[in-house]
Structure formats: C-alpha cells, structure tokens
C-alpha cells in the first residue's frame, strides 16, 4: 500500500522517472533503492527526500516552525495512524477534527507534504465512515474533501463522497 502511495506522491510532485522501492520487515516499511547512494528507509524520510528531489521546498515548510510541524505530522502518520487499532480511530479523528477547526492545511497556510501523506493514510478510514460520522468530524471531512480535489493529490485512490449540505443537524456544533 505504501508503495502505491509513494508512486502517487511522485506524480503529485511531478517527478518524471519512477524510483525503485522495496519493503522491509513485518510492517512492510518502504525502502527507496538507489544505485549511487545508500537506500532510504521509512515513509517520512522517503517523502521528504522526494520533495527535495522535485525541488519543492515549499512543501517542506517556509519557517523552522512550519518544518517542525510538518515533520511532526509525518511522524504522526507513521507512528499513530498506520496500523492503528480500531478503537483508536475515534480518538484520532476527534483530535484531528479539533486541530483542523481553525486550519485549512495541516501546517501553515499552504499545502505541505503533511497534507497528502495524511490524506493517503486516512483514506481507508474516511471511506468507512458513515454519513453521520463524516458530519461529526466535519473539519476532518472538509479538509479531506479539499485534499482529494487538490490538483494531483488523489491519483490511485477512489474519491470519497462528501455531502456539503448537512443531513443530521442535531450533532455537535
């Protein structure tokens, strides 16, 4: 799964020639194979490397603070989101929903590497949500919808239907 995601990311970044990847261990950690340099291990590391290779420093943050927030989300993606237990999903969505209330993007006022990677990681979770749940995590849903419409992000993933007009208005807010 991580490999298809990396190939989508390459397309999003506009990288012409695809890299060679393999996986490592039980958790299938992605590895970027390279002939000239030592191979890179881990989703966050590889994604950051690809952004640099594509000369997209804007995706890595404009300030030190922004760069840190982006790395924090990449780490969150790998450590908390990937392979999380079913009972953790609610907490993750709740936290993320609160975080996104006053934000359009995860870090700063522009799209960064954190956004597509969190989008890829959350996709299977959001797909499984019922309409009521999507409304409950309104800010996550809004951000998610923005991401899947963002030029070049979605690629290999099927679009998730998001209702703009709320059906269940008795929920929170």
């Amino acid at each position, binding site marked *: 799964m991580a490999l298809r995601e990396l190939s989508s990311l390459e397309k999003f970044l506009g990288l012409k020639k695809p890299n060679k990847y393999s996986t490592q261990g039980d958790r299938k950690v992605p590895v970027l194979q390279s002939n000239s340099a030592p191979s890179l291990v881990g989703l966050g590391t590889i994604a950051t490397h690809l952004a640099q290779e594509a000369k997209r420093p804007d995706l890595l943050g404009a300030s030190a603070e922004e760069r840190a927030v982006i790395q924090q989300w990449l780490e969150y993606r790998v450590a908390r989101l990937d392979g999380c237990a079913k009972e953790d999903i609610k907490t993750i969505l709740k936290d993320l929903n609160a975080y996104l209330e006053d934000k359009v993007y995860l870090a700063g006022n522009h799209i960064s590497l954190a956004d597509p990677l969190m989008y890829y990681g959350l996709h299977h979770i959001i797909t499984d949500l019922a309409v009521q749940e999507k409304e409950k995590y309104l800010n996550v849903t809004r951000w998610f*919808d*923005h991401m899947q419409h963002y030029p070049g992000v979605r690629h290999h993933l099927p679009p998730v239907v998001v209702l*703009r007009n709320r059906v269940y208005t008795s929920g929170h807010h």
Partner: protein
Amino acid sequence: MGKVPAYQGDDGFCLTESNAIAYYLSNDALRGSGAQASAEVLQWVSFADSDIVPPSSTWVFPTLGIMQFNKQAAEQAKEEVKRVLAYLNQHLNTRTFLVGERVSLADITVACSLLWLYKQVLEPAFRQPYPNLNRWFTTCINQPQFKAILGEVKLCDKMAQFDAKKFAEMQPKKDTPPKKEKGGKEGGKPQEKKEKKEDKKKEEKKPAAPAVEEMDECEAALAAEPKAKDPFAHLPKSTFVMDEFKRKYSNEDTLAVAIPHFWEHFDREGYSIWYSEYRFPEELTMAFMSCNLITGMFQRLDKLRKNAFASVILFGTNNDSTISGIWVFRGQELAFPLSEDWQIDYESYTWRKLDVDSEECKTMVKEYFAWEGDFKHVGKPFNQGKVFK
C-alpha cells in the same frame, strides 16, 4: 464620466467598474469552471457589493475618520455585519473556499470586502463566534498572491471607535491627502491583484489609485457640500473640536466631564462665547409656546450646528417668563449675519460677548450648560432648557 478605477489594455480595450475589470483580468479558474461554478462566483461578488460593503463602510469609515459617526447607523450596521458573518461562517462550515476547492474571484472579492472589518473592528471576542470564517479569511490573506498586494495583514486587537480628531483633520482640506495613503494602499480592490497575476495583460493604472479613490468618494461627498458655502471658510483652523465636546456633553456628566473638557480644549482665538436674552419677555405667554420659539430658532439655524453650541433656558412660569442663553460660535463675531438663513430670529435677542476669562463667563457657562445653579442675574426660577447641538 471620469470613473476610477479604469482599465485600458494594450489593445485599447477599456473597462470601468472594479468587478468587471477583475472578471476580465481573471483566468478561467478564478472565474469558476463550469456554468454553475461561475454563477456561484458571480453570486458571491454581488453579495460582497450588496451585503458586505454597505454595513462595513457605515461601521468602519467613521473609525478611520473619513465619515461622520452616527450611533444609530453604526449599531444597525454592526447587527447587519453580524448577520453577514454568521451566514458566511455557516457556508464555510463544510467548505474550504467559497466556490469549489480552490481560490476564486469569490474569495478575493469577499475577503477584500471584509478586510477593513477584520483590520479595524472585529476584535477577537467579536470574531470568535465565526471560526470557519476566520479560518477561511486567514488562509486567504496568507496566500502569496494576496500577500503581494495586501502585505502582512494585522487583525484587529481592539475594536476601533470613531476618530473625531482625524475626522476633523480630514474635513477642511481636500488638497492634502497624506492621511489616505495608509487606507489607500490596501483598500482592497481585487482587480489590482489580478493584474499582478496576469502579467500578460499589462497594467495601465498606478498601483494605489483605485483604492485611494474609494476613500475619496465618500470624503468628497462629505467635504464638498459644506465647503461649497461654508461661511466660516475664511477662519483659520481651530483646535477646538466641537463634535467631541458635544459628544461629551450628550453622553457624560456635564459638571464632572463635559465642562472641564470644554475649558481644557476651548480655543479662544477660533471661538467666542455670547450671552443672549430675549428682548420681548412681556410677550411670552404659555411655557410651551416659549419653548417652541426657542426650538424654532434652533431649527432655522440648522446649518450653523457644526459651528455652534448653545444652551437656552426658559425661566419663570406662564405669562411671567424670560428666555436667555449661552452661545458658543466659531469666530469672534456674531455668526448670524454670515448667512441669510440665520437672520430671522437673532434680532429678537440682545447679544453680549463674554470675556472668556471673567468669573461671570465661567459661572454662566457652568449654570447654563448644567441647567442648574443660582442664575442670579435672572431672578426667576428655572423652567426648562433647550440645547442647540
């Protein structure tokens, strides 16, 4: 028609009206792709013009000192603004941008029309109920294309109030516009932005022109009228701000605040204080008729309001009364001969200019402004007072 902003393309194509120019300079993505999206964009542009700009101007312009303050109108505008913000907040609940999933002309126009609200009056507590709108607005103004024009936008910390001093400063002279620069620069006209983006269409107008003009219109309307026939135009500028004093007089305690303010700021060169007495007290009958006499005179002097203040009091009872008052005028002469409209009543009164430093003057100002005291020179009890302000 001498319209500003105006646009002239390389090929000689001309346009006026900011929204039309913005539309022309936009690319298809900004206009909204598809019939539905572009209609939605148009809807928001119209919404900005018809629902945001009017109440926003009514509320914000006085705080910038470019329009007179009217409490009732401002309060009404405030409520109107709240409705608009709530509506936008609701719309943005499920949306990142106003139309579609990217910035469009709708976002540019609406954000720019909200700009001065956010800068001047929407203090944190006031904007707190609209988190979706705040999120959207912050994102918009931080897009590089917005930033290129608007610079760093600082959101309001504390709600600005009417700036009487600035207003007074800006009123009399139209030829020195330094005050406007600040406002002018980011006056928030979307077409400027477009120009930057679309470099292939060469910009013809000076960068700051369109926004400055926006301020001008309003100011010109206000300044032009009184200036055309301002009988006090020949007098040098005064430091005493009549409106400010009147506000203190109306809203705060007369003895504790208004009168000390009056003496502290009074400009003896620019203004004079007069005592007036009705010449035919024996003709005064019923108290209400006498009051009508006073208020009728005030009405006929309406155009003098800006440059005068008076407290006129009816003393005594029916068939045994006198009228006298204290007047403060612009200039050192009686103001009435300056305009034909003002000459109907004043000859029915005797007028005596008071020595500003005299005890008599101080006492009279105090007693007449406050409607209380001994009124030793009158010899009749206070009946009722009328204030010309």
